[in-house]
């Protein structure tokens, strides 16, 4: 009798593990279906014009997300460009110059601290420290000087990307075969030449994947950007302009949205974010897996 229970218990356990694990895939699928179904009213009402439409005016039922698309892309790429030199340098420092030891260990933990600070705190901090500085720059250029806008959001976002990119890139470059490096040194190369001619070229795909995944991060980053971007649905004139990103427009308007099409349009933006970040992640992981294997 006892034995029969043990066998049953075991069967239930194995079944449970399988179901829960397959559940992760089902969860993703359900995410997509949910977003798609909930976006359907908007897709039907707005059509493809949703992507190119330049006016976002819920009061008059105009839903064009082009300004958010532009805002998202500029903010994300700008932050990626700003953070790239820092990320590569820190990754080289920790992965190539000083891969072991106490002090580099401390450095790595300090950089990891950047990942420990919540997004909303970054936004709050940026509002009181970065925004006033940007405001002064804007004044110097004789621009309107609210301080918040694409540039401020990108600056703070770039700080947030650093720990993420560093850990990805460090992982990739530390996989460089030692004999490859030694061969280059044995030919009389300087460390700089080994880095620029051996380490970086031989890991270029892995490093690009690292930046691609960071881009995915940046696209979906919400709170800090929402606080710092200035929340304006108009098309930006320059990199100092206030703007809106896809994520921040959802964050700001979702709970206040009235009417089916309005809510549904916001969900459609979410659907696009979901699809784009999923594709980016799939490609990024694929490249990194190949690079490391």
């Amino acid at each position: 009798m006892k034995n029969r229970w043990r066998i049953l218990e075991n069967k239930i356990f194995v079944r449970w593990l399988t179901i829960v694990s397959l559940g992760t895939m089902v969860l993703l699928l359900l995410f997509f279906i949910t977003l798609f179904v909930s976006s359907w009213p908007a897709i039907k009402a707005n059509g493809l014009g949703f992507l190119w439409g330049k006016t976002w005016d819920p009061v008059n039922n105009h839903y064009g997300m082009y300004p958010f698309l532009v805002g998202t892309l500029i903010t994300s790429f700008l932050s990626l460009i700003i953070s790239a030199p820092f990320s590569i340098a820190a990754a080289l420092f920790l992965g190539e110059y000083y891969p072991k030891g106490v002090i580099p260990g401390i450095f790595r933990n300090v950089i990891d601290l950047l990942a420990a600070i919540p997004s909303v705190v970054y936004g709050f901090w940026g509002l009181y420290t970065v925004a006033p500085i940007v405001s002064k720059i804007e004044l110097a250029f004789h621009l309107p000087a609210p301080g918040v806008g694409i540039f401020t959001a990108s600056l703070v976002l770039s700080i947030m990307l650093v720990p993420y990119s560093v850990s990805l890139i460090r992982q990739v470059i530390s996989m460089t075969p030692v004999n490859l490096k030694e061969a280059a040194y044995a030919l009389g190369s300087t460390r700089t030449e080994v880095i620029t001619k051996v380490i970086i070229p031989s890991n270029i795909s892995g490093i690009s994947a690292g930046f691609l995944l960071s881009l995915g991060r940046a696209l979906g980053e919400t709170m800090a950007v929402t606080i710092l971007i200035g929340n304006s649905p108009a098309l930006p004139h320059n990199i100092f302009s206030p703007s809106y990103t896809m994520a921040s427009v959802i964050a700001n308007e979702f709970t206040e949205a009235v009417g089916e099409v309005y809510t549904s349009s916001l969900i459609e933006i979410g659907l696009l974010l979901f699809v784009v970040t999923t594709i980016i992640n799939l490609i990024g992981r694929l490249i990194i897996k190949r690079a490391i294997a």
Partner: protein
Amino acid sequence: MTPFDIRGTKRRQIKDRIFSGFVWALTFSCLIVVFIILFYLFEKGIGSINWALFTKGPKPVGEFGGGIANAIVGSLIVVVVAAIIAIPLGISVGIYQADNRGKRIAERIAVAVDVLQGIPSIVIGIVIYVWIVKPFGGFSAISGSIALAIMMLPPVIKSTEETLLLIPHTLKEAALGLGASYYHTVRKILIPTGMGGILGGCIIGVARIAGEVAPLLFTAFGNPAMVFSIFKPVDTIPKVIFAYASSPYEDWQRIAWGGSLILVVFIIILNTIIKLFENKWKVQF
């Protein structure tokens, strides 16, 4: 006579120095930024920390001396319930993944977990809104917990899998060889042996969700009152920071700084625990 390939040496060495200098300088500026942020947070936050911050709820505009007691309680409820949901599920998937390593199905699940980790948190908020908030007619702590639980899953799954893979195969065989069921082998041998790593993953998961607001905006929402129910909307510390961050009232800003400091210190403590005990928790074979 100088051999032809030595002539450029000096120039190359200078170039090497300059490059290394850049690497050092850029790395150091990252470190400096960390200290600037933390210093600023402490400077602004320390002054706001007082007894009322922990014991009082928010005061109406114009009155001074409110606190975030309701948000602290709310954060605890939302995060603890999320952990209760995510930990057993995450460990289960991790066990399955470690056991089926190399099989096609496990690889697909691993991809799904990676994708799950990359989904913007705000999108998770939308989905949970559609699944739970709308059908059940209102914002609630539990809907927020479910959203956060989904965010917490990937780190728990991955660290469970990685930890279990480090355990020698013969340990499992020895247990099965004694007539133990697979279930008891997992429960009494594999999980206790890998406890350190699994616990570490759970802490990483909690650290990841403790500061999140985006998935809570349309789920746990917010609530100025002190609430102990998982079926009512609740305030959370990060939500209060977001709400007060751009407010014009100095007292609210003060409270937001205090909340930021509490939150960051809490997360840093969690991270430090992991770093400190990472090695101690490792079981010797």
